[in-house]
């Protein structure tokens, strides 16, 4: 996407709530922003560094629970609690990630998945988190539509910050370093790439952004429960979206998130949850078999193959 097109999309998204848009489209778009955030953030560690985390629901849930806990028990403002949720998730990622990142390949994937399930088990058993009953938050006495607008903007800001931060990482020096780690960690280390610092940094950034999204989502939903805040499906959806869009670029996961979320919505509305999940599971399997590289590289190739001057492909996209 060229700079002008990106600016155009941003302006449209910013003005949309005032164009007579109803609650449902705004809610759907907020959810698209949220999943874009999760997928783009996951991609920093999973795509750029090649460390496949299947436990990102842990960071999302921690962000949400930090928000819920501080709101209910501390009475703090949500402007403060959501970023704090990100901080808590990032700190947890630093503590848990340090040992986990010593593992490679399938071991890392399996351990992160167990980590996600473990955090859920702990929250379910701590009485002061509401445990299995969940936690209720009281929203200010807003009209439904203005509440929708507020959360729409909150999620949009989170998604924009995430995309800009991750894009900066990808195009910067650490992006090159992470790519080197993915290709061959030992070789990269031998020529002086600071592997531990980069991996840990990538995981912390990824977890922090995921926790931030979790914090906003928790307040939006105003009721949280371990079953959906720490849902394994969240972890896997983030992976799937990044994978479908394309893991090598910063923009691929956005494409994946938009496609997956909209398809999921249509299926759920049309055929019901169970049938939708069956189709979805099989579709997931099919996508992996047919498009292992992701959609974005294919689209870019189509564009390059078309009879256009090479300048039509902007530098930013090629580099990513």
């Amino acid at each position: 996407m060229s700079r002008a097109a990106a600016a155009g999309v941003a302006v449209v998204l910013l003005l949309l709530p005032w164009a007579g848009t109803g609650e449902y489209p705004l809610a759907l778009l907020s959810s698209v922003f949220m999943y874009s955030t999760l997928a783009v953030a996951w991609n920093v560690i999973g795509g750029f560094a090649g460390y496949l985390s299947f436990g990102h629901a842990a960071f999302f849930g921690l962000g949400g629970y930090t928000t819920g806990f501080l709101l209910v028990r501390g009475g703090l403002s949500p402007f403060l609690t959501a970023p704090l949720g990100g901080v808590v998730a990032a700190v947890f990622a630093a503590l848990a990630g340090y040992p986990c990142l010593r593992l490679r390949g399938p071991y890392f994937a399996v351990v992160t998945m167990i980590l996600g399930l473990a955090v859920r088990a702990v929250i379910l058993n701590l009485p002061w988190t509401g445990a299995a009953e969940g936690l209720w938050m009281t929203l200010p006495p807003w009209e439904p539509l203005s509440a929708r607008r507020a959360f729409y903007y909150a999620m949009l800001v989170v998604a924009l910050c995430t995309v800009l931060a991750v894009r900066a990482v990808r195009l910067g020096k650490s992006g090159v370093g992470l790519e080197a780690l993915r290709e061959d960690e030992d070789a990269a280390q031998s020529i002086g790439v600071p592997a531990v610092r980069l991996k840990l940094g990538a995981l912390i950034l990824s977890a922090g952004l995921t926790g931030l999204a979790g914090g906003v989502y928790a307040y939006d939903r105003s009721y949280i429960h371990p079953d959906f805040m720490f849902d394994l499906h969240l972890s896997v959806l983030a992976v799937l979206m990044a994978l479908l869009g394309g893991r090598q670029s910063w923009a691929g996961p956005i494409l994946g998130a938009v496609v997956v979320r909209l398809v999921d919505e249509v299926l759920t509305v049309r055929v019901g949850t169970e049938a939708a999940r069956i189709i979805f599971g099989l579709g997931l399997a099919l996508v992996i078999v047919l498009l292992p590289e992701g959609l974005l590289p294919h689209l870019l190739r189509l564009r390059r193959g078309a009879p256009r001057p090479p300048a039509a492909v902007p530098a930013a996209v090629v580099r990513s």
Partner: protein
Amino acid sequence: MLVQAVQALATGLLTGTVYALLGAGFSLIWGVAHVINIAHPALAVGAAYAAYALAMRGVDPLVSLAVVVPLFFVLGVVLYEGVVRPAARRSGDLVLVSMVLTFGLAAALENALAAVWGPGPRVINVAYTGQAVRLGLLALPVPHLAGAGLAAVTIAALYLFLHETLPGKAVRAVWQNREGAALCGVNLRQVTGLTYGLAVASAGVAGVALALIYSFSPASHLTWLVFVFLVVIVGGVGSLVGAMVAGVLVGALTHLTTLVLPFAWTPFLLFASLGLLLLWRPTGLLRR
């Protein structure tokens, strides 16, 4: 207290044997094909429902194995030939592809089961439900004994197959060194297909055995997945003996901790011990 401890240990050993069988098949696929089969416990839950459907028509779960085992063997071969192999050929990142792929299959299977039988838990009732064998002060429920016995026999059969027959030795050769085995004339495709067949059939047996012991629901596979991970990581990837030891260990630990801590804390304890174990020995307790 001592009687309770011994009772907990005995129950733990019985259930642990079944976890060992479930872990063994998962471990075999991971070791031989380098594929993380997230759908493994979901297939076991599928077998539990198959046994349940037959039990409703008066067929004993042990008899239903005559249907489940061949069916699941074929299912395993189809899973490899039809799904995993084409996916693996198109992508270099087998771990990622296999995990996402098999998660998709597991989610589809879970929801298909929920669509047919509903999301609630089911129990298999057999003639010997509620009966127990008394050994002094200990009481061993007959369904537990049947499930554990079934699992133990299957593990023994797998062990004999892998160690005493030529195809079994080929499977172990591929696990130890893929290229080396291929150079010696082992047909990798056939052996991998055979591994999938055996592993999924063993998941079928484990599912029936677990159904004798616990109630199950379509979502049960996530809980069973945790035990499978534990067994494989503790026992080491691809090792049958390791899986056996780890399964029994995990089963015993789970039941012993319930004596000192509320049951709800058991998963956390298991995870924590697993985390520490991984830091100490990332390749498992019993290294090859």
